[in-house]
């Protein structure tokens, strides 16, 4: 308890403090900040259509975590733990946002020179937020996109929320809340930010980037986060599942989803929100956004049909959970490819994800015997890996000419696949290792699991002092 209280105290203190500091800071900073605000190259002028779309997409991506993912996940656990899952998602909406504003965005997107990590340019939103310059109000524009820096920061910040939330699926129904909080602060800072920088921040994996040419077979294409979001979270989820151990009674005792209606509604919201996630990643309301939107939609559709269809063939019944899981698998798989592939390959990628993730969540999981409670690894780890590799196969210059007119994906004769493989491997290893270390440390210090008695009675009552439903 005392540890909890202390922790919580620190959390709040540190939020307020960090903010205050930088509020005061804001004043003197004005001048130096200046430098960061108007960097060469010059900012692009604002396009209100693009900005409208990116803001809308940001709202959609937040909706993916809450209520989307919260519904999807909470429906899959037992009634006694429904709130604990919702709380993980909702609390992370707050926690990761604060971290993102204070230092996360800067570590991921600050500067571009360093191949491994961002710099301090944007700490506390300096250089991102509005500023009073030479007697004028200035809201900094992004240099690469015709939207304000703030819009870019917001959109990317929503990814910083959902990625850790995805991991929660692995340790659901037994993880200690306080430990989860600390873990996610560290994970976001030490795992997500670096990877985001590598891939999107001009780091070592950025396609055709200098350091990529040097270290990473020319880098990888990851339109909306196959490596950054899904592989990183999925692989970390597997490590979590392995280190925290199985739920009491797993796998002998049945643990059916307590409310599949929530899971289905959540899956639908994820599908809808994913348009913001993928098409929004064009960071413009242009043809590429439309193309990414289409690829996303087709892949989700094919995934749902493939997973449910496979159940139908092999077990005689298509399930709601199967259709929902398949749609999500299709969405995961298309994420890195969405802005680079045509609709028909998108159908194939979705179908492949539906079949392979289905296998990963049933046979594979059973044979290895780990308890990835909500299949965060089976869907995001496997689906993300599949997507990252197939991006190397199906990416085409027809959608975006990113390679000076030369072919990109294997299918049209390009060599992207190599870089995709490197990026995939790199993300796997990095995420796995850092997560492993973090969990070992936390296990030794705070402990990962709630006491047996509390796990039996449920986390809702013991971790949060609440009940999900009081129907009588």
């Amino acid at each position, binding site marked *: 308890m005392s540890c909890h209280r202390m922790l919580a105290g620190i959390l709040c203190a540190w939020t307020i403090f960090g903010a205050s500091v930088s509020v005061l800071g804001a004043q003197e900073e004005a001048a130096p900040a200046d430098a960061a605000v108007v960097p060469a190259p010059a900012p692009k002028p604002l396009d209100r259509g693009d900005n409208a779309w990116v803001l809308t997409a940001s709202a959609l991506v937040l909706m993916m975590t809450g209520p989307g993912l919260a519904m999807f996940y909470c429906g899959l656990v037992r009634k006694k733990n429904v709130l604990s899952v919702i709380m993980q998602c909702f609390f992370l909406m707050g926690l990761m946002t604060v971290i993102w504003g204070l230092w996360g965005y800067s570590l991921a997107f600050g500067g571009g020179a360093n191949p491994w990590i961002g710099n301090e340019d944007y700490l506390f939103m300096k250089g991102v937020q509005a500023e009073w310059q030479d007697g004028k109000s200035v809201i900094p524009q992004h240099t690469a996109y015709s939207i304000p820096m703030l819009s870019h920061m917001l959109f990317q910040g929503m990814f910083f929320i959902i990625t850790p939330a995805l991991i929660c699926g692995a340790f659901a129904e037994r993880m200690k809340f306080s430990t989860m909080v600390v873990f996610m602060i560290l994970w976001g800072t030490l795992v997500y930010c670096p990877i985001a920088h590598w891939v999107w921040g001009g780091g070592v994996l950025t396609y055709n980037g200098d350091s990529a040419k040097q270290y990473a077979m020319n880098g990888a294409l990851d339109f909306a986060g196959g490596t950054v979001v899904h592989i990183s979270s999925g692989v970390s989820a597997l490590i979590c599942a392995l280190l925290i151990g199985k739920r009491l009674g797993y796998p002998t005792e049945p643990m059916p989803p307590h409310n599949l209606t929530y899971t289905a509604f959540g899956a639908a919201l994820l599908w809808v929100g994913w348009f913001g996630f993928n098409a929004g990643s064009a960071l413009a309301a242009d043809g590429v956004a439309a193309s990414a939107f289409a690829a996303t939609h087709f892949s989700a559709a094919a995934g749902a049909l493939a997973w449910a269809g496979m*159940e139908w063939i092999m077990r005689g*019944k298509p*399930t709601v959970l199967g259709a929902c899981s398949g749609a999500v698998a299709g969405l995961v798989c298309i994420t890195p490819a969405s802005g680079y592939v045509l609709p028909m390959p998108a159908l194939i990628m979705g179908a492949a994800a539906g079949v392979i993730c*289905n296998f990963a969540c049933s046979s594979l999981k059973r044979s290895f015997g780990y308890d990835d409670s909500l299949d965060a690894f089976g869907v995001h780890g496997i689906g993300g890996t599949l997507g990252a590799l197939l991006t190397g196969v199906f990416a085409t210059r027809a959608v975006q000419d990113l390679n000076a007119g030369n072919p990109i994906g294997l299918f049209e004769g390009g060599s992207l696949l190599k870089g995709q493989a490197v990026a995939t491997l790199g993300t796997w290893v990095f995420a796995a290792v850092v997560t492993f270390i973090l969990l070992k440390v936390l296990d030794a210090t705070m402990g990962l699991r709630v006491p047996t008695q509390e796990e039996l009675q449920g986390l809702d009552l013991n971790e949060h002092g609440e009940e999900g439903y009081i129907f009588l």
Partner: protein
Amino acid sequence: MKKVEAIIRIFKLEDVKNALSAQGIHGMTITDVKGFGRQKGHTEMYRGTEYKVEFVPKVKIEVAVPDENLQAVLDTIMRTAQTGQIGDGKIFVSELRNTIRIRTGETGEQAI
């Protein structure tokens, strides 16, 4: 007085209730229960994991009856609740020492 407890199929509740009131049974108490017996349950599947549900949802009707009505009540339930399929359920009869109507304090058969 006797207490009759009948465990029947959910979709038979309406019929049984009507038949009983038709023959002048003024009251009864219903409880939702899960039954385990010869009738086997069903199988559910979640992400490839099959899981057997052995309990079958049933409903329990409790009626306190004066001894002279007992047989009639039993017959009515038998008749209306029966489908002939495994799982029709059971009727249990036990002795009641006393019955009290809370509203009036009446006791014994008046209270029923």
